[in-house]
């Protein structure tokens, strides 16, 4: 197993708070998507606003009046009226309820839910301090169990639940609920980063590598939050328009339900967190991005950090080789950096990078290697 142990405080927060609906919601979409609502239309929570190029529904996350439809849909919110989409066949339900993989890949779930041998439920939350999946698992274990049984009946031969074994509550919870369930296997993994990565999980379970899609080796990987979202859509008729996010400051940590399209500042203001002169990070500390307070939160974001941070000063490379030895895809980040704008860059395969940021984290000279790899990726794409 390739990975590194990151500093992680094991203070888990299982409560999930509700946030008030903001005055305005911004829903992003791609140019190729077809939007069916128009300006001044009244939309309800859970209503379909249009369809993506893949045929997936774009869901409204609030009730209100549409102010604008281009380049983003802006809704002035009113009192919530929820639309229910019940009694549908599973795959149609995934499409109509706008279910996406909530692990970060953000692919339409209906596309990958095909008949396969194994379903891997990913409850390994390896990003430090993030515990959105943990909160979902602890609070909604019965619902997750029901959904896994349904999926076993309809699509899969076996289910493997992979989780991080360092937290006792989680281990006990999974053991009591699934230890004696037929066709369900539990896999406790060490607290290593990036073990939650799809390819690492498949390698741990199947002992084989795949090229592009886990289906090549008969696997479908789904995040535990996605399983709960599918439960809500299939059994309760609730489309996917909100998710649990962990909000972390220097001295506070809490889980909240956040609607798709809320602004970071709305969330921080609702939680009474001062954000001026602080760094706001959307996503985890490793793979996340520093953003402005007016950035819109989407369903693929699982955490918001509002912290103070020292600036790192880049030093010359000492060729310690730590970046090369820890890379989960066996790239040579420092050589990629040295080969930028030069011939032979494509031989180092920067396009294989999974953006895990271990190279930049581990570098004792604080060289922002990830930045250089992203640049190299663009150069290789350009030449292709």
């Amino acid at each position, binding site marked *: 197993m390739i990975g590194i142990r*990151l*500093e992680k405080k094991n203070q888990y927060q299982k409560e999930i708070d509700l946030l008030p609906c903001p005055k305005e919601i911004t829903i992003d979409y791609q140019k190729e998507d077809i939007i069916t609502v128009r300006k001044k239309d009244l939309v309800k929570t859970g209503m379909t606003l249009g369809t993506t190029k893949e045929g997936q529904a774009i869901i409204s996350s609030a009730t209100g009046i549409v102010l604008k439809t281009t380049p983003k849909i802006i809704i002035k919110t009113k009192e919530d009226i929820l639309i229910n989409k019940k009694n549908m066949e599973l795959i149609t339900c995934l499409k109509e309820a706008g279910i996406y993989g909530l692990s970060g890949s953000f692919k339409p779930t209906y596309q990958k839910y095909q008949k396969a041998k194994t379903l891997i439920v990913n409850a390994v939350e390896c990003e*430090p301090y993030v515990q959105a999946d943990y909160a979902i698992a602890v609070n909604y274990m019965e619902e997750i169990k029901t959904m896994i049984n349904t999926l076993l009946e309809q699509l899969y031969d076996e289910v493997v639940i992979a989780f991080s074994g360092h937290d006792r509550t989680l281990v006990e919870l999974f053991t009591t609920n699934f230890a004696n369930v037929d066709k369900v296997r539990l896999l406790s993994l060490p607290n290593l980063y990036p073990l939650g990565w799809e390819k690492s999980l498949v390698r741990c379970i199947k002992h084989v590598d795949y090229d592009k899609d886990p289906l090549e080796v008969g696997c479908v990987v789904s995040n535990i939050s996605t399983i709960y979202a599918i439960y809500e859509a299939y059994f309760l008729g609730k489309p996917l328009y909100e998710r649990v996010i962990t909000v972390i400051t220097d001295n506070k940590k809490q889980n909240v339900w956040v609607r798709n399209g809320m602004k970071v500042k709305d969330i921080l203001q609702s939680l009474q967190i001062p954000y001026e002169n602080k*760094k706001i*990070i959307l*996503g*985890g*500390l*490793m*793979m*996340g*991005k*520093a*953003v*402005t307070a*007016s*950035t819109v939160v989407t369903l693929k974001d699982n955490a918001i*950090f509002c*912290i103070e*941070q020292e600036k*790192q000063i880049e*030093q*010359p490379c*000492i*060729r*310690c*080789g*730590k970046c*090369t*030895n820890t890379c989960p895809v*066996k*790239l*040579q980040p*420092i*050589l990629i950096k040295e080969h930028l704008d030069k011939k*032979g860059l494509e*031989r*180092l*395969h920067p396009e294989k990078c999974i953006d895990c*940021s271990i190279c*930049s*984290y*581990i*570098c*004792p*000279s*604080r060289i922002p290697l*990830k*930045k250089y790899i*992203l640049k190299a990726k663009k150069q290789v794409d350009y030449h292709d």
Partner: protein
Amino acid sequence: MIKENGPFIFTPLTSQKMRQYFFLALLPIVFYSSIRYGHLLKLSSTFLLGIITQIVLLTVYTKLSHQTFDKIKNQIAPLTTTLLMYLLIPPTLPVWAICFTTSLYLLFQFLYLKYHLNRLTPFFLSLILSLLFFGKIGYSIQEMLVIPNSSWLMNFMFYIFPCLLGFSFLIFTKSIKWKISVISLITVMLLGTITLLVKHQVLSEGLIKILTSPILLFLCFLAPDMERTPVSGVGCVLYGVVLGMTIVLVSPYFLNVHSVYYLLWLLPILTPFCDYIGSSSAPAWKKVAIPFTVFLFIFIIKLL
């Protein structure tokens, strides 16, 4: 709007800390050398003189070049290099010779800063030049460390132990490419055992010399020098094997350990080759090079 990409946390181990750990790792062997040699006062004054010369020259340079002292000091790390110099240059040298070696070292360091050469290169350059000039005056402290006519265990207790203690500390703090040292030591042991078995007198004497001599210091501290050795894991293993084999072949035929300075000076020529083999971009090379090295290894043993 995205301002910056992750990560936003970093390993606590910085390159500056790694240099500090290297300094700490050298301390046991320095203390032992001081006690063993006996002239504690003279050695301390040599050590202090090395540091003072460096600090004076750095201060003059920063004044002349209008740079900040801290920036230059961080790049040059006077303490660690003086400590290494203390272990490697003959203590019987006159005061002016120590000042000369230190100044020479600094001169090469500035060249490093200007042309981004390797960091230990200036150190080796100054050392080799000094030894060429003053080598005949006396042996280095390290060469005097081995207790003459004493048992292997005695030497182990008083020489190998402090050396390995420092080395273990560097492994524990992850501040060293341990693969190079460990693999080269294993190669030396393996080849040495074979030469003992085939009763090759020169080489088997060489083995004892290696394990109870300053070469151990080179293998533990200087050979895995980060900047001049391969980056990849496979490259490090290969480099370690070649280093071990070369040491066994070269060291018994030389009376002093100066030959190893030259060896460590020359061997990094192999680094790009080892990196190429260890690189993910050369899978075909990997398949050929590793069996080739094993074949070379067997061939040399046969030759012996």
